[in-house]
């Protein structure tokens, strides 16, 4: 069972490595959006750092949503999805493996890029840490939840447009608590409570969304 899970992760990462445009695109989008804010709004450090949390998180949310259509699309088109379904490994675990591999290309990279974003938006170093922590805890939830949308729309030709529409309401709590955490860190307040809530969302998403994604994939292939 675990050999199948590891095989899925390593294959997806290898594929991502061979088509780097796929995963670099959302990352460059993320950096571009953030780098345009100081130019368009104001270069005053106080103004920039006040809205930094919101800007980084909106950019992260949008770039994750942008990248989600590719999660199952190629597997559906070339028949790999059928092979995943007929394999003896439990489908929810395979889904979790695929989302993890996808998160490594999006959320994990966004977390690594967040110090650059913090620098561009004049965030102090300790707040940059808080921002990175919220991204580390929050982006897996974003990936898992939008995977439901990706699975539901995989059999549609232009389904990618529907993923944000379907899943955006579910991302709002993560967005609210993550940006609130950054704001609290900026004001020198403790952020553990916010981080605990983000972690709770993550646990909920890890346990429940793979089941929903697996059911949606079965519908997409069998329907």
């Amino acid at each position, binding site marked *: *069972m675990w*050999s*199948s899970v*590891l*095989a*899925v992760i390593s*294959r997806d990462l*290898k*594929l991502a490595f*061979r*088509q780097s445009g796929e995963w670099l695109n959302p990352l460059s989008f993320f950096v571009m959006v953030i780098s345009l804010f100081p130019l368009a709004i104001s270069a005053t450090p106080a103004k920039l750092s006040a809205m930094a949390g919101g800007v980084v998180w909106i950019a992260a949310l949008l770039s994750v949503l942008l990248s989600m259509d590719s999660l199952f699309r*190629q597997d559906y*088109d*070339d*028949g*790999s999805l*059928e*092979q*995943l*379904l*007929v*394999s*003896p*490994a*439990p489908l929810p675990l395979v889904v979790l493996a695929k989302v993890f591999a996808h998160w490594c290309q999006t959320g994990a990279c966004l977390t690594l890029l967040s110090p650059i974003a913090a620098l561009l938006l004049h965030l102090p170093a300790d707040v940059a840490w808080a921002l990175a922590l919220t991204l580390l805890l929050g982006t897996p939830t974003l990936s898992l939840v939008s995977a439901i949308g990706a699975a539901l729309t995989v059999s549609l030709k232009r389904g990618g447009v529907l993923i944000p529409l379907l899943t955006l309401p579910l991302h709002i709590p993560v967005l609210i608590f993550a940006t609130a955490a950054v704001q609290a860190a900026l004001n020198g307040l403790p952020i553990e409570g916010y981080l605990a809530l983000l972690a709770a969302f993550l646990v909920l998403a890890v346990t429940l969304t793979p089941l929903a994604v697996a059911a949606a994939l079965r519908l997409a*292939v*069998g*329907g």
Partner: protein
Amino acid sequence: MLAVSNLCAVRDDRVLFEHLDFNLASGQIMQVVGANGTGKTTLLNGLMALAPFESGEIYWQGQNTQHNPSMFKQNVSFIGHLLGLKPLLTAVENLYFLSQLQQKSASVADIEAALKKVGLYGYEYVPIAHLSAGQKRRVALARLFIEQSPLWVLDEPFTAIDHAGVQALETWLIDHAQQGGMVLLTTHHVFNPDFPLQRLDLTSYRPQEYR
């Protein structure tokens, strides 16, 4: 042994077949025949639990596959209409991944031997995107020798394969059956009259009137 009882498949409010019963014992090759749209692929997909049947039961070695799906899945190699190969990965990488997914421990040497057997010696480390349609089909067929499952479920395996390949595939099917394996395939390929084959004609399970 694979036993199927009282299957009924419905697609878009149309009954494709009903009251379908058959047994597939070891050593048997069964060809599912029927005109286009009689439900050949639907039958195979349904057996592999890719699409639900309207009703009916499937038993593998006497056990209902719905109650113990992983035991059935471990013993089947399914090659569908889509091959499930990644264009950017090489033949060996694809086959290694698929064997791990099937929870079979194949070594790279096993995979290279299987590729040689299907006539792709020298193409082991070429990305699938660079192979022709027939060569891709052969890569998929190499899985049969790597996974060594008792039951082969093949949807149109003769598609895009050249004349020599067709004959080779026929002998592989016979060899597998002689070693006690089972084959369930759909194809429009015409076998020789002396080919040890059973036919399952889906047309005769079609309801007489539209319901």
